[in-house]
């Protein structure tokens, strides 16, 4: 290989690397710098270097702490729920059942609708006079406040996010399922194994890499989930859906406090990097 040839791969990689640098790394670095400054409007909008004070403020502020707790709570519930349901859905769609073709064509519909529209539709469905309360009344059950209740709003967001997320992640798992050789199942069946044994000893181990990817990608997506909160609850009621992502938006774009907002985004970025690190660790042990 000549010296010039050594550079060929980098030449082909250059467009992607440049995009990553300009659209990922530089904004992240700029956000980090912003998180070290505070703006004083009394002094005519002058930015002052404050070191890590914005980060301390996030942890000292009850609203900041609450938003971290809401983010963790939301993710601890939504990720296992979505992945569990997505796995079940993929297993179902992978079966040769009667009418499955029709089901295969409709279960993906939520993905085809933009998240903004989905959020607006769910807002109407969960309204006091919406479809959901209409159904409850028909069944003789009391109407529920859903998005108006601090005890139900986060669950409503989880339900909405899962309506889209389950179908989306099921696609990846289905691809993984269809990559498992059928001979393995046939051999196992001849050996007299049951359905659960085949699932535990063939399906799950061979789906592991796909599941790890889905787990990581889903967690990252849910950590950064923003649209349903903005459209449906604006972080309320009583800050029960005030995720760190939404609080960062509110601090920056509504209150003009870009320092604290950037500190929150850096915390989210840190959490996301930690998840990616876990992904590498899990993949390494599986090889």
């Amino acid at each position, binding site marked *: 290989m000549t010296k010039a040839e050594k550079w060929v791969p980098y030449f082909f990689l250059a467009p992607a690397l440049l995009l990553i640098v300009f659209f990922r790394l530089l904004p992240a670095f700029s956000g980090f710098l912003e998180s070290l400054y505070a703006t004083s409007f*009394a002094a005519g909008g002058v930015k002052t270097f404050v070191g890590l004070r914005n980060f301390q403020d996030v942890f000292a502020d009850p609203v900041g702490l609450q938003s971290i707790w809401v983010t963790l709570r939301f993710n601890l519930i939504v990720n296992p729920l979505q992945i569990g349901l997505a796995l079940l859905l993929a297993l179902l769609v992978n079966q040769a059942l009667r009418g499955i073709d029709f089901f295969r064509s409709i279960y993906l519909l939520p993905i085809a609708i933009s998240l903004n529209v989905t959020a607006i539709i769910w807002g109407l469905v969960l309204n006091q006079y919406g479809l959901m309360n209409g159904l409850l009344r028909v069944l003789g059950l009391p*109407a529920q406040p859903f998005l108006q209740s601090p005890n139900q709003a986060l669950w409503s967001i989880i339900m909405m996010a899962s309506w889209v997320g389950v179908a989306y992640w099921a696609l990846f798992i289905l691809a993984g399922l269809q990559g498992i050789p059928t001979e393995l199942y046939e051999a196992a069946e001849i050996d007299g194994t049951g359905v659960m044994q085949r699932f535990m000893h063939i399906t799950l181990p061979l789906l592991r890499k796909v599941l790890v990817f889905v787990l990581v990608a889903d967690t990252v997506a849910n950590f950064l989930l923003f649209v349903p909160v903005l459209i449906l609850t604006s972080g309320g009621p009583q800050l029960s859906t005030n995720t760190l992502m939404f609080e960062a938006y509110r601090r920056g774009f*509504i209150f003009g406090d870009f320092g604290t907002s950037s500190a929150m985004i850096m915390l989210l970025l840190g959490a996301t990097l930690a998840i990616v690190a876990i992904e590498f660790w899990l993949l390494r042990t599986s090889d």
Partner: protein
Amino acid sequence: MKHRIRYVLLGLLLITAMLAGCTAPVAPQPADQGADQAADAAAAEKTKVTWLMLSEWPGTDDVAADFMADNPDIELVLEKVPFNDLFQQIQIRLSSGSDTPDIVSVDVPLVAGYGVRNWLMPLDDLYSDAEKDDILEAAYAAGSHNGNLIGAPQFTSTQLLFINDDLFEQAGIPVPGPDDRLTYEQIAEMAQQLTQDSDGDGVTDIWGFSWEQTNRIYQLQPMQESLGGQAIGDDGLTVEGVINAQPWVDAYTYYSRAFNDWKFAPPSDSDEPELFAQGKLAMMIAGPWQIQRYSTMNDGAGPGFNWSVSRHPYFEGGEIVTPTGSWHIGINANSKNKEAAMRVVNWFTTSKGAELWWRKASGDFPAQKSVLALFQTDPQFQEGTFAYMKTAADEATVNPVPRALTPGFLEYEQILQTTFSDISTGADVQSSLDTAAQRIQREMDKYR
């Protein structure tokens, strides 16, 4: 030789005509050609000015067309955004340093906040002396920051109690007249009688009372002010001990009970003006723009029931206080079309444009004295429900109290808005106001 030149010219003319025929089936007449060229030239020279405004305002395209007829060198583009999104959109676009929109509609208490951020250009040269004299002094002062006008006054406002007369009569309650002023205590009593589940399915069909803007400080502030409360500390930056003091707690205890105990107010995410229009809300505090809306509904036939207005309520033994302040117009400090934008703002906030808006568009109260005077003389406002505009014009003079004068108004309003929503869904009043005070105080510190 002469003939030769003629033949050549004729030939050229024919070729030109044939080529023109390829593109235009009918050859334009000389006069049309001239007009087209002028139009093309005007289009090429037109300055495009964008104005970010409320989508709820009707008739704005008509008035924009009137402006462009008067000013053919300017193309005015209205970017219309719903009320709930407008403030955030202004905040995001102006804070990014964008050169568009050129013009923004500014809710007057936000003038100071936009001023400290240098988002709006000074408009001190906008008016002649005569034009300036025609503007309400209070509105001019409210649009100024550090002595400079940065928000040109377009409207002022007040609030009235809208009443569904038919529902009152069905419930056997005497309908208050346009000059009567109920207390909040009377409203609570009447509203409970008026609230109905007519088909007994456990769902309320007729609600007793609510506000047009259920969780905005603009409409709610007179409650605590009536009880002796202050909007904000005297320095314009202190809220601790002010917004969680007893008058606020008492006012929002009433507010909470309206939703949670007495249950005469519909959930805070309802569309109250629409509920009123459908005959499902017996009383509503709303702006005079709803007089225009309900009077012109169904080609002027109205909403299909008898309705009227009375004066803004107050707490028994408390002070009579009415909301005030409204929309102003500012020019983006980064606009590349400042001169054209100045002409737009001048036209819309002086006599002709202000009057055309008042006649054709939103029905808001103009901030121009000459247009306000038309309420008393214009035949349109002398009879029928349109005459309630005269009641509103008079109510606007009864102890109007502006909203908090603070550069942090946006933070103040946004946090209070979520707090009021929380209270309406059952959150404890005192602890909600305490939390709001802490949160707002924290945001105010960046203005010290």
